[in-house]
């Protein structure tokens, strides 16, 4: 082998996620940490309002179904597991399986959205709209923003499923795969905080 870059037709080994590598790329983490800071700020504002209006928050929170809340958490946990598996299969060279797992995660997301739509419909139908009281404001704000992120995540998962099926990912596809996976996990763990805050704590 002489010096210079060889352009080969051989399939490149997928970049193993080695120790010391940023999952995805740095920019993804700018987005993720930014979101974390803002959501934490909103959680703080929520708790602040709660400390002033404890009874109101407790009363309105009673209307939310805690079992449903736990179910949401489990659905998203499952979807995160699917995404982890998908990445694993991608790295093992099985793009077809990876694609299936991405789609399975997307399915979980769809289930979440359907349940969420049902829950919102129920609350609005009962007259508990955005303006009913501050708790409901936060309920719709937090679950709404979360649902927006979830929808973005689902679009990403669809793209990842296509990328996985095509196989032979280059550097920018790996960034997309890992970055997209991290975004989905963020959607999952944001809900892990929203669930107790809205459904259990008040």
């Amino acid at each position, binding site marked *: 082998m002489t010096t*210079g870059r*060889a352009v080969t*037709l051989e399939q490149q080994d997928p970049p193993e996620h080695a120790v010391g590598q940023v999952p995805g790329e740095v*920019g993804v983490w700018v987005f993720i940490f*930014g979101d974390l800071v803002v959501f934490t700020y909103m959680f703080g504002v929520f708790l602040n309002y709660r400390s002033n209006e404890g009874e109101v928050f407790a009363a309105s929170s009673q209307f939310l179904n805690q079992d449903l809340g736990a179910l949401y958490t489990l659905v998203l946990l499952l979807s995160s597991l699917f995404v982890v598996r998908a990445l694993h299969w991608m790295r093992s060279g099985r793009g077809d399986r990876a694609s299936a797992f991405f789609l399975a995660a997307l399915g979980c997301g769809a289930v979440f959205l359907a349940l969420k739509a049902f829950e919102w419909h129920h609350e609005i139908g009962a007259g508990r709209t*955005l*303006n009913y009281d501050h708790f409901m404001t936060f309920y719709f704000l937090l679950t709404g923003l979360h649902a927006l992120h979830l929808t973005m995540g689902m679009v990403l998962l669809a793209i990842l499923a296509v990328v996985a099926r095509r196989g032979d990912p280059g550097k920018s596809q790996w960034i997309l795969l890992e970055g997209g996976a991290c975004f989905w996990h963020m959607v999952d763990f944001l809900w892990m905080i929203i669930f107790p805050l809205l459904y259990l704590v008040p």
Partner: protein
Amino acid sequence: MDQHFTIQRVCTWAAPACTFVFFLGFAIADYLVPPDPRSSPQETAAFYANHPESIRAGLVFMCFAGGLWIIWSAQMTNQMLRIEGVSAPLAWTQLAMGACACIEFIMPAYFWLTASYRDRSPEMQQTLNDMGWLPFDGFVWTIIWQNLVIGIAALMDKRESPIFPRWYGYLSIWCSLLYLPAGFNVFFKDGPLAWNGAISWWVLLAAIFGWLMATTWLLLKAITRQQQETRNGALAGDPMSDLARRIDELERKVAGAEPVAVRT
């Protein structure tokens, strides 16, 4: 030749200027902390009756921010064209959004200026006040797209030396999300999403102007890089020479690469 770059730099500085003018104007008019949407018409009328001169001065000054916003937007499009080339829907969208965003500064200001112009019934003053605050805080319908197309263009950049760092693409898209809740201030008279709320007002302000500072800094760096690239040949601002430079790069790559090896 350096004139090309000086002009670009001047246009870029319109962004910090816009920021300065906005904050100073609002401070003079005592608008930085928005009034409570639950204020009674009488309280609102009293606000306008109490210091009409500083309101007028501050808001007229603030109007300059509208035009300044367009100037830096045009410069952003100028750089985005280098990313997209001849077919540049994102760059033109950005420009149009930036131009419309100017309205968002000036129209509400005129509703407030109208309120301070004459004595009127408290209900009328409250109406004019609402007509200013609801859109001034809630008019996010251009900036969310402006940020989004900038972010997408930055991430789409396939040049050897990208115009913007990749984290800026993510930052722009993320800020776009931060602006969105303010658009819903029409639903609320209090709480974090009202026009004076933590999320609709304070997060929005921090996000817009924080992002604008990052944008200014990165645009200036991009201009410097462009200037250096130009010194290595090619005319500034000439898309054909950008093309010539890229052909140059390709030829160098091809010359340096090994012949294609087939796996045996």
